């Protein structure tokens, strides 16, 4: 069909529609469960890292950093200043909080063992005996499911001491966040894990040197871990072939907004955004597509005419946006871009951790400015000043939050300036709507 990719097969979601797919029995029976682990444990850690490196797996959390490379940054035998060996930690970032992103939740609820298996393999690869799963605070049910999955895996001997007779010990600990978006940033997550304020740390040192509890740590996304068993089981070639030259495998895309069939889709990366929208049943009610946010709320918007771009990391980066966490938000012609952008900015205003001057004050300032424009108090100067504020924020702070704020703010003003100007001219969103309605009614009369 339209996948247009003879190598493609679902890596993570082949059976998520089957009943009982989250159980250990199902995973063992139908999905070659923990076979990848079995294979990995027979390999040397460096070989596992090499396998993942060759598979071109890139981090699925948003930044798209090559996973194998990240694992290889972990020091082999870290020692403290007295010469005692230091433990290494593996951390799973399950703080999925990006507006428009809901792919990790699917893994948690439908195929948790795949992720657990991936984590154990990663633990073996980087030489860690303890892993933390940092779960978003709002995920009550998901936490329960994951805890059950961990308990089951432990009972079956996939976790704990001497896993599958290999002599490798592994332990997984669940830690629930308190509901802060910024704790999805890896160093803020580590701070939060340690019980501190969830504020990103200054880098360097990077987590691979000083991570959780001061020990070398590796933080990966849920989807990244979930892809690892497949790579080990089926080999890196098969995985790499599915993707593009620089990015292997498939991506989970959470399509939401004004489409007929919103949901999580596992797709190869050689599909364009238009293809994805078509797969998701097309734009709702046959309306015209206006804009797409291709990678979660932080990704700059694309106009409808730019949606031919492929969904892989490099193509999207070339188009001036980013693949991010795979949350595709579809916006149709009935939606006011200013209102949509304000909704996102309100979120960012609320979620900035408040460390860096630019981000703390800027996210608030932008949200208030958009609100004022919506309420009819905007001026032409405001539009230029929004660009200036964004310029002062982006790339100037400790973490990428400030850049994320400028994503929707700057792209909306740049690409949909006429909508802002219309609001300024008409004196706000309400008056603009009234104006449009009366216009339509008049047309009907004629």
């Amino acid at each position, binding site marked *: 069909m339209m996948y247009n990719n003879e190598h493609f097969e679902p890596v993570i979601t082949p059976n998520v529609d089957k009943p009982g797919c989250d159980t250990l029995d199902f995973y063992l029976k139908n999905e070659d469960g923990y076979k990848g682990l079995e294979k990995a444990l027979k390999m040397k850690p460096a070989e596992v890292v090499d396998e993942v490196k060759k598979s071109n797996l890139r981090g699925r959390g948003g930044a798209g950093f090559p996973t194998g490379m990240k694992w290889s940054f972990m020091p082999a035998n870290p020692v403290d200043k007295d010469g005692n060996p230091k433990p290494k930690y593996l951390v799973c970032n399950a703080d999925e909080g990006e507006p428009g992103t809901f792919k990790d939740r699917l893994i948690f609820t439908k195929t948790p063992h795949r992720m657990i298996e991936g984590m154990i393999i990663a633990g073996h690869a980087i030489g860690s005996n303890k892993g933390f799963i940092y779960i978003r605070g709002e995920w009550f049910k998901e936490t329960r499911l994951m805890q059950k999955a961990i308990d089951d895996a432990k009972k079956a001997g996939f976790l704990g001491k001497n896993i599958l007779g290999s002599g490798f010990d592994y332990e997984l600990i669940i830690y629930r966040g308190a509901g802060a978006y910024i704790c999805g940033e890896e160093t803020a997550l580590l701070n939060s894990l340690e019980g501190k304020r969830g504020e990103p740390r200054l880098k360097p040192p990077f987590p691979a040197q000083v991570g959780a509890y001061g020990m070398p740590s590796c933080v990966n996304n849920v989807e990244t871990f979930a892809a690892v068993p497949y790579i080990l089981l089926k080999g890196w070639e098969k995985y790499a072939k599915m993707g593009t030259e620089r990015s292997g495998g498939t991506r989970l895309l959470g399509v939401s907004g004004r489409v007929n069939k919103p949901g999580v889709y596992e797709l190869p990366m050689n599909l364009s955004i238009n293809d994805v929208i078509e797969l998701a049943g097309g734009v709702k009610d046959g309306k015209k597509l206006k804009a797409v946010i291709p990678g979660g709320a932080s990704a700059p918007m694309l106009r409808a005419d730019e949606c031919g771009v492929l969904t892989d990391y490099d193509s999207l980066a070339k188009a001036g946006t980013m693949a991010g966490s795979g949350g595709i938000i579809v916006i149709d012609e009935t939606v006011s871009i200013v209102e949509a952008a304000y909704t996102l900015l309100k979120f960012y205003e609320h979620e900035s951790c408040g*460390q860096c*001057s630019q981000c703390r004050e800027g996210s*608030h*300032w932008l949200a*208030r400015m958009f609100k*004022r424009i919506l309420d009819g*108090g905007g001026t032409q100067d405001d539009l230029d000043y929004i660009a200036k504020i964004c310029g002062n924020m982006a790339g100037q702070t400790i973490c990428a939050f400030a850049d994320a704020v400028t994503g929707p703010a700057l792209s909306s003003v740049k690409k949909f300036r006429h909508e802002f100007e219309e609001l300024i001219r008409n004196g706000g969103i309400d008056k603009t709507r009234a104006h449009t309605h009366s216009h339509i009614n008049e047309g009907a009369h004629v």
Partner: protein
Amino acid sequence: MSNTEIEIKKPKMDLNYTSNKKPVHSDTGPEAKPLPKVTIDGKTYEFKPGDTIMEVAERYKIHEEIPRYCYHPGMPIAGTCRMCTVEVEKAPKLMTSCSTPAGDGMVVHTKSEKVLKSRTGVMDFLLTNHPLDCPVCDKAGECKLQDYNFEYGPSKSNFKEEKRIYEDATTKKLSDKITLNMNRCVHCERCVRFTDDVTKTNDLVMVNRGWHKELEAADPDKGLTNDYQGCLTDFCPVGALTMNDFRFKKRAWFLEKKASICDRCSKGCNIEVHSDSDIVYRYVPIHNEMVNGHWMCDEGRVSYNDLMNPLRIVSPLLRHQDSLHSTTLQTVLGELKSQMLSANSVQLVVGTDSTREEAALLKDKFSDSLGKKVDVFFHNGTHGVSTSKDDVKLDHLLRMKDHTANTRGVEETGLAPLSGGQVNADIVVLFRNGRAAVPSMKSDQKVILWGVWTYEEVKALPTQNVLGVIPGHATIEKSGSFKNADGIVQKFHPAITHRGGAVSAHQVVSTLKSLN
């Protein structure tokens, strides 16, 4: 350490940021390795491996080129205010100079167009929610928000929204010493890091996040509990944390600033005396790595109130019939000398708050000036301390048990301690600078008071048989030197001019000698 002598000097730089980092030079010799070099604004500087860019700048006293809010040399690095960003060649983004280690061959620009634009941006953001209440703010005149805005800020703001207002923000009392005005805060969090890492009392926290972020006492019922709260107002770059003791007393630009030494305990913290028309308004610490670092305790900080006390005796007094009367120094000294000469025995008790010079003078010259053998002892008596052996640290930072400044210096002159803290002579001369305790005595003991005394202290004496009072200079009014608890000798000069009738010990001794 015991032979170290330093002279207290007023630093050229801003008090809060002073750093004692010195330029480094490569070793010479055949085996010597050259030190790494970094180029800052076109000039090349050698540095110690591990230095950050800011520290290199501090070494060569060019750090004033780099503005900063959250960075403080006495605290861990936060890197959050983003004011100190500089351009490093080959780095894609601007780097925070406080946290970026200098590298060999690195080329740094502190004033490039990109840097200045970023600083203007930060100022624009910080000023959006600042109340701009400089006319009623105590920090005005020494405020970093003012200074940096003058230098880097945008000429006008486009902020048209409503400003952030914290509830009860303007008069929140964090303790009886400190008032917080949260509206003025720029969220540099120096105060939080200070209580976390310097005093280790953890009594300040930031609550909430984003632009609602608010400073609060960790335990709002207790408030601030540490003994170094005054330091918060020193390094707070804006007027968010102000000291109740100084609040609304004086505009900063009227203050004359002279270096001196705090005589409140045996630590001898280096201070700057801020005065106007010889009235002292506050003490602030001067950075001295060997003595007090960047800090000083609250007890010392407000101790200027003792010598600004309106009840301090500043003119010579002589007993006539039943009360003390003000008269000339000549009259007082003449009368007292004849009384001392006719007494069977005279003791001189030198307080350990005297300078080394005073103690030596009294030991060697007092008997001679009187023409009569006088037994000279020293006495401390503060908090049960009699000699420097009893002195202990009260916390991990600065505070000492001995509340006089020069116990070790006075001991060094060879004087003996007053045995049992009990005086025993017909007439006892008590010489002190307002810090040492009064020794115990009989209720009809004849005493001559010399030095810094207040009427309250005279009234509280065990005896009311005071023959006369010879007023003397307090520490910040004279020159001299103290030897502190760590054996460091510190010289100091007058920070203010004494405007009353007090005279130096030297003048008293020479006058006594000249009288017949």
